[in-house]
């Protein structure tokens, strides 16, 4: 019988109390009448019956509670709409942020067994992640046993010529034949590469992305076997990848066999991105230890080139730009803060509402509703509000997502953008459940407890405990909003700081575009020089152009291009940290970007392969290598030749606004050996304009077309936009964070106001007594006001401490702004003070107007 009684607990308590005894009696009677074999059947039948009908009874109650809830919520539409809107803000903010977080950090990559995929780098002192040289790649691959396969690639760009249309610049990747099998993907059409395709000097083959296939061939099915022309070379199409394949990033539109030369023994020429697939059962640290062991042996074997070589290995999923990861984490934290504030606010709203419903609830208790039914009823109402808020929140997230999507870096190996999909909807459901629980269950339990006590007693006031709970919630709201406000303030300061940084050049009115000269057609240096000279000559003659020049890579666009320098013929290797940012330039480049020449001269058209090799260097390079000496006339070796310094220019932040980067060395465009260093051939053209760019771009395109009809013009943009792009992620983040902080502060102010206003309405009688025995109205108002100030002070003390802790965690994003920045903290403290005053004013004013006679007579 004990088992039966236990089973009865599946029913709601109200049902059990009502019918449990009788059901037990019936069961008892049947059990007695059954044989021992029949008893087993009886049990089976009974258990099934109880489980099924208990679920049905719960459902009956739910249906009833929902009906009742809808009526109750309809009676107070302003409360219901406020609560739904507030819940929607919290859930919507978190849903939107989660969809970005999931996209950037969590979602499994679209490859087979993505957990086993790793990225591998060389590590030398000062450079934790360096691409691999082909020779080191071959050795690591050959000597290691931790990987079932390994593949390598590097990103390339080519000029695509299609008959009848202008040539086009497209990005692709040169990959080893085993890269696609390593990732575990195969083309949707045709085949992957074979070892034979990847052999040096094998016939050109190519695999297209789904997007390129559609744009070039309109999605025609029979294109395998046809050819396309890249950089004047014909490639046979062997396959088309599926649309969701975007590796190494979504900018890549084609893949070609890398055809590494077996004769390339230079271990310092590091450019391969390497992906490995771990053998089953091998851990990341096992694989890392093995690679480091091999690196150690190579360092001994090749002391010149592999000095201090080690390996860095990490799961491919974790290879997210540090800045992006941090950005997303900060936003997630901020969104959670908003959710907490929202829950605290809703809980307060509900407690206030519950206080107004005490009589209604007491009546229900008096006519026989048990505490459990009342708690259930209230919890159902909260859940309904949360669900409505959740649905609205998902809609909000859907609308707000495009604003947040820009925060996802384009370099991820995933196609598409963050969207509200099934995973995000599940997250939204969890958030909704959390919200419903956090703001609904607490007040419901509290109220249910009071329902037992004689709530019908006229004028029964909520106890001190409720007051304390509500105050705690308001303080929590204040703390969370102070953290958000301080975070926003600090990041705003950091943004100002970053945008005030002098990049070392003048981006205003500078138009930039790219003409990449293809090899082998432009391998001879003089052939390139002729191209630059005719293009620059004709462009400089255009009205509205005051200067123009070519560079091998614009600042902020090409951030790397590092080369080691050596003085007095010392051997060079990447291991010593004497690297510089190396650029080849034409005359006029410095003038175009208004980079001041501090000493000496610009590069010149007369700096040829027959004249002495020269270089223009940045001030920081001169300082680093010849402190206190005149750099003009000093000699050093870079890019295979010793060169004499003929000029010194102001420093430029090649790596972007937030990094000083390496010192710069500029070499005249002609002083490069035929066919060498193709990636250093000048390709970025900068033009200083005095007219709007729209008027002049067609003329420039025509000039390039006249000089070489096969040459595409790409990446046409203003240098100012490139610089603005530097701070765009920060601005995007700040916009979202600012919106969160604004909502948080608003909710906190509403919270203070709600608490005080409710307190006043509860204490009218007390105030009446105080006034009757001689207190001044101003004293009574002061009482209310002081309560607000006390809450604000408490919130400030805790909030400032929490905000400081959060700010220290943010330090990496602060661009040098102190986490204890007095201006930010001062402003936030002042803002919270103002909010408190505003929140307290109305309740205090109401207390001021209490009429003692009415208050005492009405007793309420």
């Amino acid at each position, binding site marked *: 019988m004990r088992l039966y009684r236990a089973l009865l607990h599946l029913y709601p308590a109200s*049902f059990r109390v009502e*019918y449990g005894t*009788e059901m037990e*009696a*019936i069961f008892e009677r049947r059990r007695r009448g059954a044989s021992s074999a029949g008893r087993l059947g009886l049990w089976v039948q009974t258990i099934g*019956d109880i489980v099924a009908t208990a679920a049905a009874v719960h459902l009956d109650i739910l249906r*009833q509670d929902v009906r009742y809830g809808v009526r109750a919520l309809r009676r107070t539409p302003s409360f219901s709409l406020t609560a739904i809107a507030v819940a929607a803000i919290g859930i919507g903010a978190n849903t939107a942020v989660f969809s970005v977080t999931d996209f950037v950090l969590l979602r499994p990559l679209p490859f087979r067994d993505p957990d086993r995929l790793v990225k591998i780098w060389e590590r030398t002192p000062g450079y934790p992640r360096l691409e691999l040289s082909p020779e080191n790649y071959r050795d690591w691959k050959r000597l290691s046993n931790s990987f079932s396969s390994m593949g390598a690639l590097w990103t390339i760009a080519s000029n695509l010529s299609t008959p009848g249309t202008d040539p086009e610049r497209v990005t692709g990747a040169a990959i080893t034949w085993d890269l696609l099998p390593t990732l575990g993907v195969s083309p949707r059409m045709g085949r992957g590469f074979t070892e034979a395709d990847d052999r040096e000097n094998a016939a050109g083959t190519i695999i297209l992305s789904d997007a390129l296939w559609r744009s070039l061939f309109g999605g025609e099915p029979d294109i395998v076997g046809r050819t396309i022309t890249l950089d004047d070379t014909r490639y046979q199409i062997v396959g088309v990848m599926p649309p969701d394949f975007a590796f190494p990033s979504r900018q890549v539109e084609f893949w070609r066999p890398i055809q590494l030369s077996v004769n390339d023994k230079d271990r310092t020429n590091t450019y391969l991105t390497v992906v490995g697939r771990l053998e089953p059962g091998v851990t990341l640290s096992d694989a890392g230890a093995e690679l480091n062991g091999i690196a150690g042996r190579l360092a001994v074997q090749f002391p010149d080139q592999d000095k201090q070589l080690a390996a860095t290995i990490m799961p491919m999923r974790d290879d997210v730009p540090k800045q992006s990861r941090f950005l997303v984490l900060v936003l997630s934290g901020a969104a959670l803060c908003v959710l907490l504030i929202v829950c605290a606010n809703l809980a307060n709203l509900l407690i206030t509402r519950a206080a107004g419903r005490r009589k209604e609830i007491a009546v229900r208790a008096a006519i026989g509703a048990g505490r459990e039914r009342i708690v259930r009823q209230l919890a159902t109402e909260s859940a309904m509000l949360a669900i409505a808020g959740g649905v609205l929140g998902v809609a909000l997230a859907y609308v707000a997502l495009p604003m947040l999507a820009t925060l996802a870096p384009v370099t991820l190996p995933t196609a598409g953008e963050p969207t509200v999909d099934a995973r995000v909807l599940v997250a939204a459901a969890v958030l909704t459940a959390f919200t419903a629980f956090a703001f609904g269950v607490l007040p419901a339990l509290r109220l249910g407890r009071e329902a037992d006590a004689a709530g019908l007693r006229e004028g029964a006031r909520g106890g001190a405990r409720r007051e304390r709970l509500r105050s705690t919630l308001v303080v929590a709201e204040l703390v969370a909003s102070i953290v958000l406000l301080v975070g926003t303030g600090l990041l705003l300061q950091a943004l100002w700081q970053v945008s005030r940084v002098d990049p070392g050049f003048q981006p205003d009115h500078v138009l930039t575009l790219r003409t990449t000269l293809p090899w082998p057609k432009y391998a001879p240096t003089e052939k390139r020089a002729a191209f630059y000279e005719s293009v620059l000559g004709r462009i400089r003659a255009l009205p509205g152009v005051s200067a123009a020049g070519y560079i091998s890579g614009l600042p902020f666009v090409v951030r790397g291009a590092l080369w080691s320098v050596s003085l007095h013929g010392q051997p060079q290797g990447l291991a010593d940290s004497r690297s510089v940012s190396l650029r080849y330039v034409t005359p006029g480049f410095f003038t175009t970007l208004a980079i001041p020449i501090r000493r000496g001269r610009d590069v010149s058209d007369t700096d040829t392969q027959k004249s002495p090799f020269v270089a223009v260097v940045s001030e920081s390079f001169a300082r680093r290598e010849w402190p206190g000496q005149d750099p003009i006339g000093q000699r050093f070796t870079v890019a295979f030749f010793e060169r004499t310094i003929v000029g010194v220019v102001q420093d430029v932040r090649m790596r972007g606004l937030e990094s000083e980067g390496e010192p710069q060395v500029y070499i005249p465009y002609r002083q490069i050996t035929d066919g060498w260093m193709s990636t250093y051939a000048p390709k970025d053209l900068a033009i200083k304009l005095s007219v709007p760019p729209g008027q002049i771009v067609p003329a420039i395109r025509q000039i390039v077309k006249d000089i070489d009809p096969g040459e595409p013009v790409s990446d046409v943009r203003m240098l100012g936009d490139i610089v603005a792009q530097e701070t765009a992620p920060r601005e995007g983040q700040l916009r979202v964070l600012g919106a969160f902080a604004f909502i948080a502060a608003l909710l906190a102010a509403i919270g203070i106001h709600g608490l005080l206003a409710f307190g006043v309405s509860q204490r009218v009688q007390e105030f009446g007594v105080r006034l009757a025995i001689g207190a001044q109205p101003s004293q009574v108002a002061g009482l209310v006001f002081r309560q607000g100030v006390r809450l604000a002070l408490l919130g400030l003390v805790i909030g400032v401490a929490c905000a400081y802790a959060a700010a220290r965690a943010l330090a990496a994003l602060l661009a040098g702004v102190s986490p204890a920045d007095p201006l930010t903290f001062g402003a936030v403290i002042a803002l919270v003070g103002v909010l408190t005053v505003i929140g307290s004013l109305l309740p205090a004013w109401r207390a001021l107007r209490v009429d003692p006679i009415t208050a005492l007579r009405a007793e309420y």
Partner: protein
Amino acid sequence: MNSDIAKLLPLPPATFHILVALADDDRHGYAIMQDVAERTGGTLKLSAGTLYRSIQRMLEQGLISEVRQRPASKDDDERRRYYRITAFGTAVAKADAQRLFDMLKLARARGLAPEGR
């Protein structure tokens, strides 16, 4: 037809049978179970869970009421509650019976049910 009645139709079989069981006399839960089993020749055996869940709903819907005065009987047991059909309950039961009868007539017209007497 009264819209309150229409809203409840068609009745779930358990509800219909409980109303029929209470049509002539007030009964307690176990007596209802026995009556239903007897009248249907044992083909319908209400389980205790179904019975009391139905009773709870029928009380809420006003189809039956609990009887405070218990009939004096030697079987009477303090623990038992007795239930009585309400006027509304009678009307609903009649309406559902009429609905079933009309359906039967339609079925007969197409030869889907045996002719009654």
